[in-house]
C-alpha cells in the first residue's frame, strides 16, 4: 500500500534526515515508526503526503508514484492526524470532520450522514456533539474528533504523527484502545509515529525502529522483543520489556552474593555459632583458598555434635554451577535434586554467590512487573 524505494531526505544545510530508506507497508497494516528524536521518523511520515519532499527515491501509495500526483490531490486521499490535534477553533465538530469531504465537494446530505456515522462510531452522540466547538471539548474528545476528521473522506492511508502524545496517560490509553477497536471496524492502512515503546508494542502490527535516518530493524512486536537486532534496539526497547528465554538469563543475574562460608577445618560448634549469627541453616564449606568443597546442614551438625569432628569430615558433596550458566540449568538441578539452593562458583571453583529458590522467584517477579 505504501512503499519506500531508496528514499533519502537531505535538508538544506546538509542535514541528512533519512538515508536510503526501503520499506513496504501492506494494505490494512498498522506500521509504527519509532526511534529517538532526530531519527527521521517524522520526516519519513511527512514524505508520504509530501508535506516534505524527498530529495531522492520514490514513495508509492496504492500503486501510484506520489511524485506524479499533485500534492494537494495526494493529501486529500491520505488522512492526517497530528500531535497538536489542531482542530479548527472557528469550526464546530461537524465542520471540522467535514473538512476533507467539503474539499472533495461531497453533497451536504452525504457529509452530514458521514459526520453522524463517525461520531456514533466513537460513542459520541451526534445530536449532542455535532454543533459543539473545539473549546467546549475535553482533550480526549478533541483528539477523537481529530482522528474522525482524518477518516472522514475514506482515505486510502492514515498518517498519525504522535497523535496521543499530548494527552494524559489515562486518556491516551483510552484512545489507544479505541484505535484498536476502530481498526477492527475499518481496516485501514496506518503509518503511526511515536517515541513511546509501550504504544508501539500495543498498537503496531509491525514496528520500524529508526536511528540517524536509517532503519535498524523491522519486525513484529513479538519479533523485536524476542530477537533485538543489536544493542541499540535492546537499549531502546529497555531490558525489562525484552522477552527472554530462561536459557538466556544467566546465573549471575539471579544469584545472591555473600553466602555464608566457613573453612573445612573448623569445628562443629564454630559452625553452629556462625549459623546462629547469620540466621542460616546451611554453610558452604571452603578450603583455605575459598575453593568450594561441600555443604553442611544444621541437622547434620546436630547429629554429630557429640563427636569431635571438623566440618570437613561431615560435609556432604553438593552440585554447583558456574556464573555464566543459564538459570534454566540451575532450576533443573534444583528440581532434580530437590535442592533449596545451589552455590555459584567461577572457573577456579571460588565461591561467587548462591542461587536460592527465593532469589529465582524474586527475579521472575521483578522481570514481570
Amino acid at each position, binding site marked *: 500500500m505504501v512503499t519506500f524505494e531508496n528514499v533519502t531526505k537531505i535538508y538544506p544545510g546538509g542535514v541528512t534526515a533519512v538515508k536510503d530508506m526501503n520499506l513496504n507497508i501492506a494494505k490494512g497494516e498498522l506500521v509504527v515508526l519509532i526511534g529517538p528524536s532526530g531519527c527521521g521518523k517524522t520526516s519519513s511520515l511527512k514524505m508520504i503526503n509530501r508535506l516534505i519532499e524527498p530529495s531522492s527515491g520514490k514513495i508509492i501509495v496504492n500503486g501510484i508514484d506520489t511524485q506524479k500526483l499533485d500534492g494537494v490531490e495526494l493529501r486529500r486521499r491520505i488522512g492526517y492526524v497530528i500531535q497538536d490535534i489542531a482542530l*479548527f477553533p*472557528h469550526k464546530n465538530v461537524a465542520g471540522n470532520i467535514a473538512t476533507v469531504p467539503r474539499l472533495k465537494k461531497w453533497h451536504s446530505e452525504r457529509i452530514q450522514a458521514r459526520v453522524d456515522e463517525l461520531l456514533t462510531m466513537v460513542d459520541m452522540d451526534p445530536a449532542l456533539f455535532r454543533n459543539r466547538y473545539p473549546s467546549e471539548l475535553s482533550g480526549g474528545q478533541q483528539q477523537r474528533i481529530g482522528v474522525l476528521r482524518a477518516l472522514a473522506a475514506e482515505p486510502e492511508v492514515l498518517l498519525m504523527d504522535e497523535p496521543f502524545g499530548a494527552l494524559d496517560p489515562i486518556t491516551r490509553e483510552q484512545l489507544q484502545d479505541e484505535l484498536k477497536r476502530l481498526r477492527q471496524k475499518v481496516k485501514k492502512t496506518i503509518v503511526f509515529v511515536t517515541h513511546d515503546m509501550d504504544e508501539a508494542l500495543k498498537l503496531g502490527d509491525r514496528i520500524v525502529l529508526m536511528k540517524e535516518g536509517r532503519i535498524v530493524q523491522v519486525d513484529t512486536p513479538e519479533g523485536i522483543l524476542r530477537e533485538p537486532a543489536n544493542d541499540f534496539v535492546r537499549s531502546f526497547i529497555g531490558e525489562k520489556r525484552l522477552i527472554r528465554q530462561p536459557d538466556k538469563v544467566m546465573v549471575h543475574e539471579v544469584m545472591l552474593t555473600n553466602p555464608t562460608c566457613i573453612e573445612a577445618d573448623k569445628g562443629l560448634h564454630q559452625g553452629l555459632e556462625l549459623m546462629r549469627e547469620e540466621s542460616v541453616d546451611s554453610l558452604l564449606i571452603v578450603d583455605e583458598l575459598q575453593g568450594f568443597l561441600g555443604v553442611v546442614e544444621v541437622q547434620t551438625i546436630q547429629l554429630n555434635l557429640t563427636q569431635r569432628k571438623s566440618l570437613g569430615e561431615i560435609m556432604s558433596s553438593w552440585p554447583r554451577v558456574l556464573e555464566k550458566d543459564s538459570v534454566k540449568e540451575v532450576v533443573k538441578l534444583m528440581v532434580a535434586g530437590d535442592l533449596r539452593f545451589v552455590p555459584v562458583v567461577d572457573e577456579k571453583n571460588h565461591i561467587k554467590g548462591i542461587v536460592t529458590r527465593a532469589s529465582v522467584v524474586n527475579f521472575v517477579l521483578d522481570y514481570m512487573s
Partner: protein
Amino acid sequence: MTIFEYMFRNAELIATRSLEHLFIATSALLLSMLVAIPLGIFLTRRESLAKFILGLGNIIMTIPSLALLAFMLPILGIGNKPAIAALFLYALMPIMRNTYTGIKQVQPSLIEAAKGMGMTDFQILSGIELPLAISVILAGIRTTYVILIGWATLAAFIGGGGLGQLIWAGLTNINYNLILSGAIPAAGLALLSDLVLGQLEYKLTPRGIRKSIKRKELA
C-alpha cells in the same frame, strides 16, 4: 443662548459639515483597507520584506499630521483630496500591521493540519487564516477609524471642509458656541463609530473563538 439652542438653529450647517467630515475619514479608511489588507497578507508570505515595509510604515506614522497635510498641498492642491490622501497614508500602517500580526498569530499547527488535509494555499488563507485573524484585523480598522475621525478636523486647514471648519471659524472669531458645534459632533462621531464597529467586530468573529480572543488593540 445655550450651546444646544445654537446647534439646533444651525443643525443644517452642522449636518453638512458632519457629512463632509465622515466622507473624508471614511474614504481614507476604505482606500487604506484596499491597499493595507492585501499588503499585510502579502507580507505574511514574504517574511524578508515584512520588516522593511513595516518599518517604512512606522516612519510615516512619525510625521506630524499637520505637516503631512501641508506636504500634500503642492501635490494635490486645496480641498478634501489632499486631506484624504494624508489620512490614507496614516491609516495604512495600523491596518497593515494588524492584518500581518492577526495572520501571524494563527497557530502553525493549524496551518500544517490544513495543508496536510489537502487545502490549497488560497483555501488555507480564506478558510483558516482570515477567519481566525478577523477580530484582530477589525480591531485595527476600528481604532484607525476613530483616529481618522479625530484627525479629519485638521482637513479644514487646507480647505477640505468637515467639522474642523466650524472649529477653525469659531477660533478666529472667538465664538465658543461655534467651536463647540464643531467639536461636540466630532467627538460624538468618534464614539458612535467605535460603538458600531465594535458590534460589527463581535458579529464577524467566528462563534467558536469569541470567548478565547484577546483583543489586540493598537498601541
